[in-house]
């Protein structure tokens, strides 16, 4: 319980921030950081805990985004229903993807997820009757809502900030819960030696599938939020390879297999990325690439892991390099 204290304080501070800070750009930056924390956590659940490195998570994010926006525009379903449904749809999409990808190991698993994400993108791009093709969907009006008597001002950042904070807290709690559950222990076993895990009675397929579903759900939540915050969804915005890779980088630079890793990674990379983007408009991912390379070379346990080692004097989480055979057949 001692360890929960800093997290609780952090959560309270995060929730209370809009009372103190009103600068829209800063709040926007925080929203982005939080969204990427959620997405990084989603990826980390599968990549860090289950040791399955996916290069196709954008497909799950995008499914959440499309589901939420389509439900709103075509069925009038409000975001607080639409976003969770988006999460569920993303989780459901993850299952057939997993069915195929889990039959492969190591780099081949990763490449197959990339191929499948591209297929999803191409379907979205071309199935115009359903997805509007390259045109995508645009939200012009958000639902009139009153909370505690005051109308919510959708032009301000505050409502979105609070929404993403709650979603991200959910993601972090879910990640923490997984890590300390029996399923989390099973995932460690699978990472250490999958054959041995199976031999001692662990249903490795079920463990991986459940983890994938959770990972997809969280990614889908992020996608749903994206749809409502940015109000525009098209295949190039929500399904590109670069987005999948961003999720990977944030989790890895932050700290694979840790709860706090994606948060640190998101703060670090998003802050730098947005600064570069503001200055140069393009090429803002250059530091993502650079820090990924630096992390793998010098800090495989990620920034969070390194900080923890310095502070607590022991390992927290495992970098890809430090783990055992990563599913090499």
């Amino acid at each position: 319980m001692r360890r929960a204290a800093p997290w609780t304080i952090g959560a309270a501070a995060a929730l209370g921030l809009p009372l103190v800070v009103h600068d829209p750009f800063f709040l926007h930056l925080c929203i982005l950081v939080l969204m990427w924390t959620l997405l990084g956590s989603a990826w980390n659940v599968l990549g860090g805990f289950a040791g399955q490195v996916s290069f196709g998570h954008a497909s799950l994010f995008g499914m959440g985004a499309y589901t939420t926006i389509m439900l709103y525009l075509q069925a009038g379903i409000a975001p607080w229903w639409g976003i969770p449904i988006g999460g569920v749809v993303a989780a459901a999409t993850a299952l057939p993807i997993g069915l195929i990808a889990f039959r492969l190991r190591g780099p081949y698993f990763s490449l197959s997820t990339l191929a499948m994400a591209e297929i999803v993108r191409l379907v979205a791009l071309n199935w115009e009757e359903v997805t509007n093709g390259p045109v995508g969907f645009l939200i012009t009006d958000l639902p009139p809502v009153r909370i505690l008597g005051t109308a919510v001002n959708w032009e301000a950042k505050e409502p979105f900030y609070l929404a993403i904070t709650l979603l991200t807290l959910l993601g972090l709690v879910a990640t923490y819960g997984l890590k300390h559950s029996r399923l989390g222990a099973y995932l460690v076993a699978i990472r250490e030696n999958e054959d041995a895990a199976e031999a001692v009675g662990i249903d490795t397929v079920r463990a991986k599938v459940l983890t994938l579903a959770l990972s997809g759900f969280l990614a889908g939540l992020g996608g749903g939020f994206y749809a409502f915050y940015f109000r525009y969804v098209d295949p190039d915005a929500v399904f590109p390879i670069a987005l999948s890779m961003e999720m990977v980088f944030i989790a890895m630079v932050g700290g694979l297999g840790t709860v706090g890793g994606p948060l640190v990674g998101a703060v670090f990379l998003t802050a730098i990325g947005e600064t570069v983007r503001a200055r140069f408009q393009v090429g803002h991912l250059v530091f993502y690439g650079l820090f990924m390379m630096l992390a793998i070379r010098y800090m495989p346990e990620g920034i969070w892991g390194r900080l923890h080692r310095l502070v607590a004097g022991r390992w927290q989480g495992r970098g890809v390099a430090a783990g055992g055979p990563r599913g090499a057949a």
Partner: protein
Amino acid sequence: MALLEVRGLTRHFGGLRAVAGLDFSVEQGEILGLIGPNGAGKTTVFNLVTGFVRPTAGEIRFEGRSMVGLRPHAVTARGVARTFQVVKPFPGLTVLENATLAAFPRHARRRDAEAHAAEALDRMGLAPKARILASQLTLMEQKRLEMARALATEPRLLLLDEPMGGLNASEVDVASEIVSRLRATGLTVVLVEHVMKAIMSISDRVVVIHHGEKIAEGPPAQVVQDSGVISAYFGRRAGA
């Protein structure tokens, strides 16, 4: 009814017949030795029985129920545990964590699982090493851990794949002693082994496999005299 019954077990890998129409049974409470020259198919038999490989044909029945098509975790859940020829510990985890993971599938709460795991470690004499990382154990200790993990799954049948491999003479004696003691607690054991001393001293019966087929069966002393077995291992005398 035999505890484990294998009938007509066959497995092809492409054009290679690794196991061909194998029949044997294992009776409750016995120690069965499974021997044969290298490449005879012994580990494949284990892989078939424990679900790591699917049979091309044949039947495998444990306690009367078929196990064909079950994945390894389900086989373990039925009560059949195995060790591996090349030990497969969870290297980054402690000895206790290794065993606890094996107990988890039957005991959802960590406390219960740990308790059962500790008991298994105790039986294998590994209790003092509970907090040591598995990767830091000696080979003999890792083999004990492998067995402790298997025991933590609460099996009724234990399949040991060359447990004596890499052990020196006195370690072999210790290991043989451990296996006998396990049987005394009610476990049934099938032992694949090359170390003849161990097989001879502890097996009740021996099944000899060559080219995936059974070529002899019976008490160890008798099987070792069998001419078919001798020629399988050593070849025929020139001109005989």
